[in-house]
């Protein structure tokens, strides 16, 4: 009886999950495998499922000669500056939406949600024209502005959920202890909010890091490419060096991978914050 139950459980749950897991992980494995092979081995038939002989040459070439170091730096600058603005504004908007009573608050919430219904692609041309008039085309500043604008509503709503979970009594207690409102926010609310801030920052960072369309449209100088655009540009019309492309993809994955590993628990908290009272 028990064996039958186990078997049924295995067939109905573990087997499908394992198949999905393989399906999800296979591209990662294949990219890593390709990035560690010599160029001559990549397309060799029969296919090699392990990089033997193994080489790091693709990584060295991609980083030094193709200029991935520079693209990596560009992506990092854009993402970090955008994340700084996104988190700062998200805290302020989230705080105002949680703690203050003002006219049009519901409307503002509605508008914030509405922004999420508009696909970014629809706004590409107007944005391009605006940035062109401002002289921001081929300027990383255009990406910082675009990312901050597009990421802010979602992250502000997320932050609102976190702030709602900080009892107002604690702020009032701080005010009785001698803080003004700003001091209460800095000394008490922000430290309590830290997991939420980390979660929001991680969401924002990953979205900025992976963004492709805006970066492709607004940046035309190759030395200002971000990583997604650089990866795209590596696909030539007649020739694709799969080894470099795979190595570039692996490099691009490292920051989000590390971030997810570190902030995983906060991300889950962030998604569920405010949904259940407690």
């Amino acid at each position, binding site marked *: 009886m028990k064996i039958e139950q186990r078997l049924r459980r295995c067939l109905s749950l573990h087997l499908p999950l394992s198949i999905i897991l393989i399906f999800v992980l296979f591209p990662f494995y294949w990219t890593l495998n390709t990035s560690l092979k010599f160029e001559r081995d990549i397309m060799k038939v029969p296919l090699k499922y392990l990089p033997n002989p193994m080489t790091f040459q693709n990584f060295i070439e991609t980083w030094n000669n193709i200029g991935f170091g520079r693209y990596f730096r560009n992506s990092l600058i854009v993402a970090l500056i955008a994340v700084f603005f996104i988190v700062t504004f998200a805290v302020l908007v989230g705080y105002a939406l949680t703690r203050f009573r003002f006219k049009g608050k519901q409307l503002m919430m509605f508008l914030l949600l509405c922004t999420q219904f508009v696909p970014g692609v629809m706004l590409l041309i107007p944005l391009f024209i605006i940035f062109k008039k401002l002289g921001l085309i081929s300027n990383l500043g255009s990406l910082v502005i675009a990312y901050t604008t597009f990421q802010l509503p979602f992250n502000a709503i997320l932050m609102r959920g976190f702030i709602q979970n900080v009892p107002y009594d*604690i702020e*009032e207690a*701080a005010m*009785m*202890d001698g803080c003004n409102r700003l001091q209460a926010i800095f000394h008490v609310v922000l430290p309590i909010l830290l997991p939420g801030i980390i979660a929001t920052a991680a969401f924002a960072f990953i979205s900025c890091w992976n963004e492709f369309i805006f970066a492709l449209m607004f940046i035309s100088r190759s030395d200002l490419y971000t990583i997604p655009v650089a990866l795209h540009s590596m696909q030539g019309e007649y020739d694709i060096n799969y080894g470099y492309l795979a190595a570039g993809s692996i490099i691009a994955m490292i920051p989000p991978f590390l971030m997810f590993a570190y902030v995983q628990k906060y991300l889950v908290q962030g998604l569920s914050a405010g949904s259940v009272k407690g």
Partner: protein
Amino acid sequence: MAKVVFEHVYKRFSGGVVAVNDMNLEIKDKEFVVFVGPSGCGKTTSLRMVAGLEEISEGNIYIGETCVNNVAPKDRDIAMVFQNYALYPHMDVYNNMAFGLKLRKFPKSEIDRRVKEAAKILGIENLLDRKPKALSGGQRQRVALGRAIVREPKVFLMDEPLSNLDAKLRVQTRAEISKLHNRLQTTIIYVTHDQVEAMTMGDRIVVMRDGIIQQVGAPLEIYDHPNNVFVAGFIGTPPMNFLDGVVKDDNGKLVVDFEAFKVRIPEGKFKNVRQYLNKPVIFGIRPESILEAETVRVAEEDVVVATVDVTELMGSEIYLYMSLGNHSFIARVDSHSKAKDGEQHRVVFDINKMHLFDKETEKAIL
């Protein structure tokens, strides 16, 4: 240490809700005053106005000689203990208590002295390096008290500080707060909806309802001489019994007639009651003022025979839920009473402790 004065204070919320309505009160220096009343009576709002956490719509509040209407909470020199403790979760107990002093830039040695002294008074010396989440409810409450004590403020404000504790701990902490007041000799304003807390702790009680002060007085004064039906019913457990009757002249003597039975009004009180002759009144009597006929010597005409519906044994005493005609009432008698459920029992109303209220205004006549 300072007195607190409410001078024609109003608090109106948007939507026309009047939470506090023309509040006038003087709380003396070093006095322990308890605001008591049901939910929504305006007691917490009044406290928050003293704290500066709620704006005053009209009127003035003075702490000491200073009108504090426009003074920020941090500058009022008061400390508050919140219902849910409101400890800073990211700080340990020591820093929770020291936070207010650090903000006021006290020297380190002074902060250390005060925190350790307060911790000693409250018996939490061994918890100073713990975070609030590692404390029990009672310990958190002590830390919240400690945070207030170290500041040595002019006035302590306490907003239902015991309501999150279990019954046993509540009784224990109740006594400790009273002891603390004796020791610190600071003005305390304490808000509670629990009339037992109000009776046991306060030098004076302020009973509130719908934003209006119903009565201010010493606990026993309020218990013995309630101003109106609300105060009479709110203070005391089990609550005072109220029976609708009519004042009648019975051969030259005034009585309250309940149709099924009559209760004599003491001659000394005729003067106040005569104007209510043949008018409906509310007769009030506390459960302990209904005595078993066997235990007292009274005239047979004063004995009321009622049916015992339910008995509730409380240990040292027993509550008899009785009914007679359309009326029902509770008597609190000795636990050795022979009263039994469903049987008739002979009781006497102690007329010297009776209360009469105007049926319309609900104000006390006697």
